[in-house]
C-alpha cells in the first residue's frame, strides 16, 4: 500500500514562531505509528535548530528505537546511552547548531493525549535534562500527531496548534 505523500508539519507557538517537522523527519516517526493491533510503542529524541533572528524551530533529526530500549503495547522505555551518542554526533555534524529539543513516542490511539506517566516524565525532564530554552514532546497517534511545549523552570505544557 502506498502512503500518501508526506507533507511538512508545522505547529504554531503561542508566543509567535513555529515548529517545523519536515516531511522526511515526520515519515521516520510515522513509520512506527501503531496501526497494527499488536504494534508496540516506539520513540526517540528530537533535535534541531533555533533559526537565527526568528522564533522558529526546525526539527532536523530524530532517533529511533535502539538496542537497550524496551517496547510494549502501552509503554516505551528509552535508554539514554545510544540516543545520547547519536545526539552528540548530530550536534558535531551541524556546526553546533543541532540541539536537543525533546522527545517523541507513539500511542495506540487516534488523537493522542499524554498519559500520567508521560506528564510525570516530561516534568522530570524539565528539571533534569540539559537543553536550551524549552522542550517539545510529540506523540504520534494513529490519526494525527500532537505536540506540547514547556519552557525550562515551568511545568505548564502548552498544546501547539497545527498550521493548516
Amino acid at each position, binding site marked *: 500500500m502506498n502512503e500518501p505523500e508526506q507533507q511538512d508539519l*508545522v505547529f504554531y507557538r503561542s508566543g509567535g514562531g*513555529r515548529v*517545523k517537522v*519536515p516531511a522526511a523527519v515526520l515519515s521516520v516517526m510515522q513509520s512506527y505509528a501503531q496501526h497494527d493491533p499488536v504494534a508496540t*510503542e516506539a*520513540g526517540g*529524541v528530537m*533535535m534541531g*535548530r*533555533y*533559526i*537565527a*533572528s*526568528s522564533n*522558529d*524551530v*526546525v526539527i*532536523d533529526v530524530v532517533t529511533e528505537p535502539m538496542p537497550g530500549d524496551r517496547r510494549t503495547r*502501552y*509503554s*516505551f*522505555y*528509552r*535508554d*539514554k546511552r545510544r*540516543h*545520547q551518542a547519536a*545526539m*552528540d554526533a548530530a*550536534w558535531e555534524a*551541524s*556546526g*553546533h*547548531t*543541532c*540541539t*536537543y*529539543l525533546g*522527545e517523541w*513516542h507513539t500511542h495506540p490511539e487516534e488523537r493522542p493525549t499524554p*498519559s*500520567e*506517566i*508521560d506528564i510525570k*516524565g516530561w516534568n*522530570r*525532564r524539565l528539571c*533534569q*535534562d*540539559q*537543553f*536550551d530554552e524549552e522542550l517539545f514532546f510529540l506523540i504520534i497517534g494513529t490519526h494525527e500527531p500532537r505536540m506540547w511545549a514547556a519552557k525550562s523552570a515551568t511545568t505548564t505544557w502548552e498544546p501547539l496548534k497545527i498550521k493548516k
Partner: protein
Amino acid sequence: MANVQTQFDTFHSDKKTGIRLGRFKKEKQLRDKRNVIRRRLKANLPGVFAKYGEPNLVPKFKDQGSYKMNTGIKPLAGGSGYDIDQGVYFETPKDGEGAYSPLTLKKRVEEALNGLTDTIRIRRPCVTVFYKENGVEEAYHVDLAIYSARGSNSDGKDYLAVGRVGDSLSEQEWKVSDPAGLQHELFRRFEDDTHGRQQFRRIMRFMKRWKDVNFSSAGNGAPRGIGLTLNAHYGFTPTYSDWLNRTRDDLGALRKLVDDMLSRFSHQYREKRQEWGRCLIAKLPVEPVSDVYENMTLVQMTSFETKLKDLKAALDAAHEESDPHEACKGLQKVFGSDFPVPAKSDTARKAAAGAASSGLSG
C-alpha cells in the same frame, strides 16, 4: 517567515556571485568603449557626410537604458552579453526637405565606425558595435540609438531611427521616443525616498535575472526588460519588515509586485496585433505611450503568465517556510544558481548539544 534578506543582499551584490554589474570593472570597460565610439564618430562623420555630398551633422551623446538608470545586471553565460546604450542625437528633421530616411542615417553612422571592430550590425532600434573577449565573439556590445533631435522637428520631439537593411520604406520609421522623460517618470516618486529607490532598483534587477533564467534567449518569447521595469513602475511598493528602521524586505516587495502583475492579466484588445486575448500590458508613461509588450504573441503571453505564477508560488512558499535553507532552495529554482542557499548550520544560532536522560513513556 524565513528571513532571507541576507541572501537577497548577496544575490544583488556586485561581488563574484551577485547579479549587479560592477560600476568599476565591467561598467568601466563599457564606458571606455563608449568613449572610443564617441571620438570615432566625431572624427569620421564629417568625411562620411562629405563623401555623399551631405551637410555635416555633429552628433550629441546621451547615456540611456539600464546603464543610465543604474539597473544593469550581469548577463548569463551564453546570453546576449553585457551592453551599454548610447543615444546619438543629430540636428536633422525627421521629415520634410533634406530629411534622412531612418536607415540611411544609421548607415552613415555604421560607415563612420567601419573597421572599429569585426562586427557592427544595424538592428531595428539601433546600430550595435560588438566586442570580442576571451574568445567569445559577441561578449559585450554598445547599442547606439540614433535620433533626429527635437530642435530640428516642428513638434519639438526626439525621434528614434527604426529600421534595418532589408526593411521596406514603410517598415522604417522615425519613432517618437523620450528615454530621459521615461527615466524621470520612473524615478520621480523616489526623489525624497532613498530606501524606496534602492529597493525599486534591486527588485528590477531580480525580475530581469528571473527573466534571463526562465526564458530562452532565442526569439522574442521573453518579456522585454523595459516592460518588466514598467510593470514595476505600476506595481512596486516599498516594503520593509520594520518600517521605522527601513529594514529591507525584498521578498515581501517581490510578492506584492508579482501579485500586482498577475492581477493585471486580463482579456483585452491588442491594438498593434489587432486581436483579442489574455495579456499583460506595459504602457509607456511617456510618448509614444505604447505597450512595450505589443509584439508578444498570445502564446508567449500565456507562457509569461504561467512562469509568473511559478514565481509567485516560489515566493509564497519562501514566505511560508520557517527554514531559510529550504526557502532559499525554492528561490534558487526561480532565480537561478546565483541565488545563494545557506548551509543549515548558517541558519541557526549555536547551542549546546544538550543531554537527555533515560525515561519511560506510557
